[in-house]
């Protein structure tokens, strides 16, 4: 222990966070070569993973490609499907049939030429939804089409896409790959104690069956428990229950009626009296869940609402209730320990940001982990600043969905109380009342949600600036041409792209090519 070098990384916890982080670090450090930085992962054989978390972001494609996992293999083993965005149903108000899309692709980059002000001026036509004016994807998703073809090479899309996946199978795949291809050392044991050194950093962790495990750097992936960072190092937790009001989820897995039932090409998110229901289609089943506030609905009624949403087929299915503590640790990185995943923070899964932030955290750790313990303090400061920013932006963005709603039930009204809205969000919304969203609102390189995401949600929810002066945004011809181009591309893609299940069946049979 005399050496100051960082040679061994110990990850505690084997959920999505643990295995994704292990794989990412082992890949970055080329840990399978003896003498390189070693990555060990301790996973409890007794404590189950959370097992939900079925929507990713498009970044997952680059992550999997980099880890050296074949896309066809990933799709087959995780019952995964292509996700092209989220359809928000009933979010605007209590009337039936209001919906909008938050998509992954716009045809033209709005940071180059922003079509939104022209859409606001009516240049795209009077009743064209924002998403349909700037993207082909809402039309594709309505028809259940895939974002690519069997001839498209792996991880490439004709349209941008992410995945829906089975969280348990995904962890299994990452585990298998980490151990067999990337050189991660796996220890199946319960951590019973965390031993600190005199300087307050972690010296080693005590396990029930493998004695002490020593390490130079520790990553806490123990889920909500936050065993290392929270319990052992005493880093406090800031609850955000006064901002985001949901505190429970009840979930049910719903088998398809037929083997060849169509698969939704995006996540469905349907507003309810005390929260919202997600509906995610995998190849073999749907995963649905009601995220709700127990202050506004009883657990029994929440489950009943979910069963009603599913319909008759819900009768024989079992529901699972999960308590969720929304909030974040006051620091994510402390001395020689960093928390990744639920142990670091959790906001409700409305925009499926958790796995994305796990990818981002492990990328930053891989890049910033210093060679010597002396230098840890610098990485610690940078990491904490970066992720405090990302989490607070994520909280604002999620909260924005609620603030913009005109739904009338107490849950939704409480969500609009000024005291529940972060000042940063109030400011942003006030400025967007005067001016349309602009690239200058997103100066930070690691802004978690891009400008386009805000545009889809703001304009989808019907939140428009009060007034766009006639003497501004005068390149009407260019805007018209681009709107026309979007329609043309949409028509072409509708004819060209296969149905989601048809493509997934073909992938299972033939696989995607790597070139």
């Amino acid at each position, binding site marked *: 222990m005399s050496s100051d070098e960082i040679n061994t990384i110990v990850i505690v916890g084997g959920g999505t966070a643990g295995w994704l982080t292990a794989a990412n670090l082992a890949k970055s450090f080329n840990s399978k070569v003896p003498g390189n930085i070693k990555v060990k992962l301790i996973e409890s054989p007794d404590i189950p993973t959370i097992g939900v978390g079925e929507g990713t972001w498009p970044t997952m494609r680059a992550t999997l490609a980099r880890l050296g996992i074949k896309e066809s293999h990933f799709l087959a083993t995780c019952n995964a499907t292509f996700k092209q965005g989220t359809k928000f149903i009933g979010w605007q108000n209590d009337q039936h049939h209001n919906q909008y899309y938050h998509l992954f692709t716009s045809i033209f980059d709005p940071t180059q030429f922003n079509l939104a002000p022209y859409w606001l001026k009516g240049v795209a036509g009077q009743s064209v939804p924002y998403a349909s004016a700037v993207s082909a994807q809402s039309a594709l998703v309505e028809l259940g089409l895939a974002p690519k*073809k*069997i*001839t*498209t090479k792996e991880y490439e899309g004709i349209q941008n896409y992410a995945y829906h996946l089975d969280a348990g199978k995904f962890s299994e795949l990452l585990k298998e790959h980490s151990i067999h291809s990337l050189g991660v050392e796996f220890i199946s044991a319960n951590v019973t104690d965390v031993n600190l050194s005199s300087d307050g950093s972690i010296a080693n962790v005590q396990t029930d069956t493998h004695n002490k495990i020593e390490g130079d750097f520790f990553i806490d992936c123990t889920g909500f428990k936050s065993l290392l960072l929270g319990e052992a190092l005493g880093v406090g937790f800031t609850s955000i229950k006064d901002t985001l009001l949901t505190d429970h989820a009840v979930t049910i897995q719903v088998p398809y009626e037929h083997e060849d039932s169509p698969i939704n090409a995006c996540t469905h998110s349907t507003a309810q009296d005390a929260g919202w229901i997600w509906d995610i289609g995998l190849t073999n089943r749907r995963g649905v869940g009601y995220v709700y506030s127990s202050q506004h609905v009883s657990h029994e009624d929440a489950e009943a609402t979910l069963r009603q949403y599913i319909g008759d087929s819900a009768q024989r299915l079992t529901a699972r209730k999960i308590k969720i503590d929304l909030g974040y640790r006051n620091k994510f990185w402390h001395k020689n320990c960093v928390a990744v995943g639920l142990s670091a923070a959790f906001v409700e899964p409305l925009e499926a940001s958790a796995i994305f932030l796990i990818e981002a955290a492990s990328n930053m750790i891989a890049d910033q982990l210093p060679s010597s313990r002396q230098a840890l303090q610098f990485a610690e400061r940078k990491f904490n600043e970066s992720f405090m920013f990302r989490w607070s932006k994520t909280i604002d963005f999620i909260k924005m969905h609620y603030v913009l709603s005109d739904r009338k039930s107490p849950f939704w009204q409480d969500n609009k109380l000024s005291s529940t809205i972060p000042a940063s969000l109030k400011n942003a919304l006030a400025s967007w009342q005067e001016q349309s969203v602009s690239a200058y609102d997103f100066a930070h390189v690691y802004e978690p949600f891009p400008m386009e995401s805000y545009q889809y949600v703001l304009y989808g929810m019907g939140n428009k600036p009060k007034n766009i002066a006639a003497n501004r945004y005068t390149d009407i011809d260019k805007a018209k041409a681009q709107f026309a181009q979007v329609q043309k591309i949409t028509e072409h893609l509708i004819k060209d792209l296969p149905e989601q299940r048809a493509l997934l069946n*073909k992938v299972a*049979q*033939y696989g995607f*090519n*790597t*070139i």
Partner: protein
Amino acid sequence: MTTIVPLDSQKHQSLSLISNAGYAHIQQSHLLPLTVHEFAMAATNFPIVFVKDAQTGQFKACALVGLKPEQNLFSKNSQWLGSYIPEFAKLHPFVAVKTEANSDKYVICIDESSESLSQKGEGDKLFNDSVASEVLTQRGNAAVAWAQKSDLTDAFIRHLLEVEIIQSQSLSISKEDQSYNLTGCYVVNEAALNNLDPQVFMSLKDKGYLAPIYAALLSLNQVGNLLKLAD
């Protein structure tokens, strides 16, 4: 429209085959499937490229016989303008299809819409009292033989993909005021071939793959031949 159906001695009893029906069936194909056994000969006439099958995404080896979709520069007024005719072009209207994905049994199918088939007794009868005629037996055997060689070709291509010597290349061809841009073509990449690990390279030799690989590589010079025919 092609309508490929299994050959049936009852249903197709009265059909006969016009043997010199020309190349109408491939008049509008700029790509013709090849088997690896044909590479050496094909390379003296056309560029050999690899393209993805639209239905399966799997690579097929093809002779490039046109400079744009629906153009076949080699087929003109029922004549073939090259010294080599891909075997595939001569199978028509017969195709051998596997009974099951991994089986080695085939059923002979025909393209019912083919102009080389006649209901009026022109040419050679396919069946004599529901027994396959000599012509049918011979053509059926040829279709099966081609399908088997096509399987070996698939294995060959899979191997080339594994060792990563096939790469995407958009063929931009221009001559004076004419320019053509063919996308979706993949070719053997010479640099990748030269950079192969010696052991991997030897494995290509042992499998007998080197000759067709070099044939495919050299065949790319036949683009000039296509341009000449296009004049």
